[in-house]
Each structure stands twice: as structure tokens, then as C-alpha cells.
């Protein structure tokens, strides 16, 4: 009989876990997340934002299993008949729970701040943190996944199953359906990071009605004639405004927190310090690719503390000083939220001009799409007339962008900015004025 343990985390309070999850959490690969900050050096802007990927991962697991349990209780018969599965016999709940818990173990130091330093594959594509997560789960955690006694006696899951689920390489209709709860427009990952980051930053922008979304989540018929499973995750009409709230929270959080110009400046300094730390460790300019046990060991050793150590040991380095003394580069020029090709070209030439003038200028892009239409659209279930419901039939639905004029108006951000060292600000301004930009 498994014992129930509790972990208390901000936002959700007590989260209950069993022996198997506790053993995974206690594994060194997962414990490393305590040393990976969720928002890198955002504390220079929002002093409370020193939280880690550790608590976020537990939060995602908590929300994903709540969503699963609601859907299984409310729509179980429809799901079973459409996907040809038996939810009681299936290990899908456990798979979703563990994939949600482990989806971020592959983050490099500084979370997203290190993604530009991930190596490129031979086909030109960059590795992403999901690739590292999959690699670590399937290769470095077999002792607490494949070989764990609870798994062997009850679930028979492989680390590879969880890795495929995280990376979107699972070839099962049922698993593809549940994966929407981890990676979709209505997924547990973004629900947790918005609430958690807002809580730690002390801002209200990330608030939305999580309880209402969990309460109204449902399944609908996939309207496309070529739909593979016939089912989609959606919210009932009563949850429409909560779904709008989630999208708007995302928009505000990106504009006010994640893309804030001061935070972006510290991301730049932190990335340069990480680059210096990698060079000091003899790793070159890129994170280890993790293709061998030794390479994975070196990747696991890299965490935020490596960057802190580098800063302390290289105090005179300009980027270390920025982090140690709160002296960041300054925003000198920016386009509107939606930059046209002409705007982007202007930023490029302006930055070149500044560098020709001897100024160490650098560019940043704050690109994000708030909401995608078509395949990944959040669908709002149509209300059924009273007495017409069938336990084995999913509702029809409409896309949120058709129902909601607010959502239909959201435009993607493609803002570009130029930063320069504080000491060069005046000179840079003069140069920019001379160009007439």
C-alpha cells in the first residue's frame, strides 16, 4: 500500500503525492530543478521572482491531473468509446502525471535564457529543452521509472513512453488526446506558469479563473472531416470567459513581465555569463548535446549556481558586473508591438550603424503569438437542449476566436529592440537622432 505524502507549494497549497512520485522527485535529475530559476534574473525587476522550476513542475502535475480527473469523471464513456480505451485499465493518468512532472527537467541554466546556447542538430534544427527532458527521462532516470517497484507491479510504463509523450512523438490515439493537457492552448503548463510567475512577481496580470476552467473542461467532436480521433478538449459555454481570461493573462504577462525591457537586458547579461562559464569549463560555446552518458553528466552539472560562480570569479567582466551591481544595458530604440519588415530592417541597419560608431549595441526580439486559430483553437462546447444529452456522444462546438471578439483581435508580437551599455547611452541617442530614426 502506497503512502500519501504532501508538498506545500505557493498557488495550489498542499499537493498530494504517492511513494513513486516522491521517489522521482527525490532523484538528482529532478532535484536539480531547485537550482534552475523559473525566470532567470527577473528579480532585478521583480524582487520576489526567485522561484524555481522545481515548484512549477509540481504545479503542472497538480493541474494536469485535476483536468484529467474532471474529464474522466464527466466524459469517461465518450472518451472510452471514441478512443477505444478503458480508462480504469489504462495507464494514461499515470503517464500524464509523470510527463507533467518531468516535462522541464531538461531546462538548462537560467531556464529559457540558455536555449540560444543549445546545440544545433545536423539538419539545422536547434535542440530544445523538451529534447533534453526526453533524453534525461529515458536515459538517466530508469532506476526510478522503468525499474520502480510501483511501476513494475501496477503500470508497466517505460521512461521512453514518458519521453515520447513530452516530445510529441507518441504513436497512440489515446495518448495524443491526453497530451493536449500538457501541450496545447488550454494546457496545465501555461496555466501554472502564469499563476505562479504572477504570484512571485507580485503582479495581478497573470490571474485567471483556474477553478472555472477545471470545472468546465469537457470534450467535443472534432469538426474536421479528417480528424483522427474525433475528440478534442474544450470548455463548456460557461467557461468561455475563463478561457478568454487565460489568453489575456498570457498577453499581459508577456508584455509586462517576460518581455519587459529590463528583464530582457538581464537575460542578455546572464546569457553572456553562461557562455563565459561554458568556456571556462572547457565546453566551448554550447551546452553539451547529451548524446553520451558523459555528455549528459556534464549537462546535469550545469545549473544556475554555475553562472553565479562565474560572476563571483569574474567580477570585472562587464556582464558579471551588470548582474552583481545592478548595472544593466539600456533600451535605446524599439519598434511597435507588431514590427513590419521595414521596421525590422531599420533596426538591423541602426544596430550596425551604432556598432560602426564603436558602441557595443545588441538586438532583441520579443516575438510571441498569443493565440493560434485553426487546429489548436480552443473550442467552446455548444449547450445541449435539456434532455438531449447522451453519455456516449460529444457536443458540437465553435472556435473561441469566432465566439470572442476580444480574442479575434489579438495580434502576434514581433517587437524589436536595441540595447546599449549605460555609459554609451548619450552617444547612441545622438547617433540615432542623426539617422532620423
Amino acid at each position: 500500500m502506497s503512502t500519501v505524502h504532501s508538498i506545500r507549494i505557493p498557488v495550489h497549497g498542499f499537493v498530494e503525492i504517492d511513494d513513486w512520485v516522491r521517489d522521482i522527485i527525490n532523484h538528482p535529475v529532478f532535484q536539480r530543478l531547485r537550482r534552475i530559476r523559473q525566470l532567470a534574473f527577473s528579480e532585478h525587476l521583480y524582487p520576489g521572482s526567485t522561484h524555481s522550476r522545481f515548484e512549477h513542475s509540481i504545479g503542472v502535475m497538480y493541474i494536469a491531473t485535476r483536468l484529467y480527473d474532471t474529464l474522466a469523471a464527466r466524459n469517461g464513456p465518450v472518451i472510452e468509446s471514441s478512443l477505444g480505451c478503458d480508462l480504469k485499465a489504462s495507464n494514461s493518468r499515470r503517464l500524464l502525471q509523470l510527463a507533467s512532472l518531468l516535462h522541464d527537467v531538461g531546462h538548462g541554466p537560467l531556464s529559457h535564457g540558455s536555449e540560444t546556447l543549445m546545440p544545433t542538430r545536423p539538419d539545422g534544427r536547434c535542440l530544445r529543452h523538451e529534447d533534453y527532458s526526453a533524453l534525461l527521462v529515458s536515459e538517466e532516470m530508469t532506476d526510478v521509472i522503468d525499474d520502480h517497484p510501483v511501476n513494475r507491479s501496477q503500470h508497466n510504463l517505460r521512461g521512453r513512453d514518458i519521453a515520447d509523450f513530452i516530445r510529441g512523438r507518441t504513436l497512440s490515439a489515446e495518448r495524443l488526446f491526453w497530451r493536449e493537457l500538457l501541450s496545447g492552448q488550454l494546457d496545465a503548463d501555461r496555466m501554472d506558469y502564469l499563476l505562479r510567475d504572477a504570484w512571485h512577481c507580485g503582479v495581478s496580470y497573470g490571474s485567471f479563473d483556474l477553478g472555472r476552467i477545471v470545472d468546465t473542461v469537457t470534450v467535443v467532436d472534432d469538426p474536421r472531416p479528417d480528424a483522427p480521433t474525433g475528440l478534442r478538449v474544450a470548455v463548456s459555454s460557461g467557461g468561455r470567459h475563463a478561457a478568454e481570461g487565460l489568453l489575456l493573462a498570457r498577453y499581459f504577462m508577456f508584455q509586462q513581465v517576460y518581455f519587459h525591457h529590463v528583464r530582457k537586458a538581464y537575460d542578455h547579461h546572464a546569457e553572456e555569463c553562461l557562455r563565459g562559464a561554458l568556456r571556462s569549463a572547457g565546453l566551448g560555446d554550447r551546452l553539451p548535446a547529451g548524446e553520451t552518458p558523459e555528455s549528459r553528466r556534464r549537462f546535469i552539472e550545469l545549473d544556475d549556481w554555475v553562472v553565479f560562480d562565474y560572476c563571483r570569479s569574474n567580477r570585472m567582466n562587464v556582464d558579471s558586473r551588470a548582474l552583481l551591481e545592478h548595472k544593466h544595458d539600456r533600451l535605446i530604440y524599439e519598434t511597435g508591438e507588431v514590427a513590419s519588415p521595414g521596421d525590422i530592417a531599420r533596426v538591423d541597419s541602426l544596430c550596425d550603424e551604432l556598432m560602426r560608431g564603436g558602441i557595443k549595441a545588441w538586438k532583441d526580439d520579443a516575438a510571441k503569438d498569443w493565440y493560434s486559430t485553426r487546429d489548436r483553437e480552443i473550442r467552446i462546447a455548444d449547450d445541449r437542449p435539456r434532455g438531449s444529452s447522451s453519455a456516449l456522444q460529444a457536443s458540437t462546438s465553435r472556435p473561441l476566436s469566432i465566439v470572442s471578439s476580444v480574442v479575434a483581435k489579438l495580434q502576434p508580437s514581433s517587437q524589436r529592440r536595441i540595447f546599449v551599455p549605460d555609459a554609451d547611452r548619450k552617444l547612441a541617442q545622438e547617433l540615432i537622432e542623426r539617422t532620423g530614426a
Partner: protein
Amino acid sequence: MDDLLRRAAFMVEIAHAKSQLGCGRLGKTAMQKLLFFAQEFSRIPLGYCFQLYTYGPYDPRVMADLDYCASVELLRVEFDPNSGYSILPGPKADAVITQRTQLQREFPGAIDRLLSEFGRDSARELELCATLVFAESVDPGPDISDLSRQVRVIKPKYSDHEIDVQISRLTSLGLLRA
């Protein structure tokens, strides 16, 4: 070249070439799958990273790029409740003419070959083809019947005949193992 403008220019090229083919509209699913084949078939490194969803290989960045192109009028994206989305070159498509020319120089004839092979396919056919190629890359079974069985499980709405026809075609193109 700026990465966003490079990808945007590629989308404009596809919309332009497809409109010249005169064989039906270009929808969002078709654009998504044509970009998948641009990387897998034409070997044009666009930087997309496709994952498998219930609706086939998909990268949300494609939709983000498409939204960007529509917002700055490089593309015109129209919606008809009956027929769905249509993507056409927009009034400001020439704003990325430099990037389009550079792409043509870098990959001469590649877009024409991509469109001549897949440009007349329906979105349904493209989705099946992309899923077959993706599924084989995930789990190359001992023979082609395993692939057919796997795809039938995740795409039950396609007939055996449809799957077999596309397997033969993709095998002859070198996109699946012989």
C-alpha cells in the same frame, strides 16, 4: 537574414506558387504540412520543430509566423465558414522581396519541386503523408506493414487503400524506406 523574415518570405513564396498552380485554395493545414515537407523533402532548413498532435505533425511557430504575415499584410488570410481558410499573397508581399530572391538563389528550383510534388494534394492527403513520414521517423518498425498499422491506429478515419497509396508514393520519393 533575419530568421522571422526568412520564414515569412518562404511562406509568401509558397502562397505565390500555389496561386499560380490554380488548383484550389491553400489552407492553414496545407501550409503547415508543406512547410513540414520543405524541411523533410526539400531539405530547406527553416528551423521548425514538428511534434505529433492529434491532427498530425505540427509546430505552433508555423501558425505564429502565419499570423505575423497576416498582421503585416505579407499574406492575406481569408475565412469562409463553408470552405475554411484561404491563404493568398498579401498587398505588401513585396516587402520581403529581398529575402524571397535570396531564398531562390540559395535553393534554386526547390520551391517549384516542392509544389510540383505536393502542391496539388488536398489538406487531407498532406496530413496523411506528413503523419506517415513522421511516424516512421519516430519508430521505424521492421517492415512497412508496421507503419501502415501504426498510422491506422492514430488516424482511423483514413482507409487502408488511402494509406497504402501514399506509402507507395512516399517510398518512391525516398521519404519512406523502400
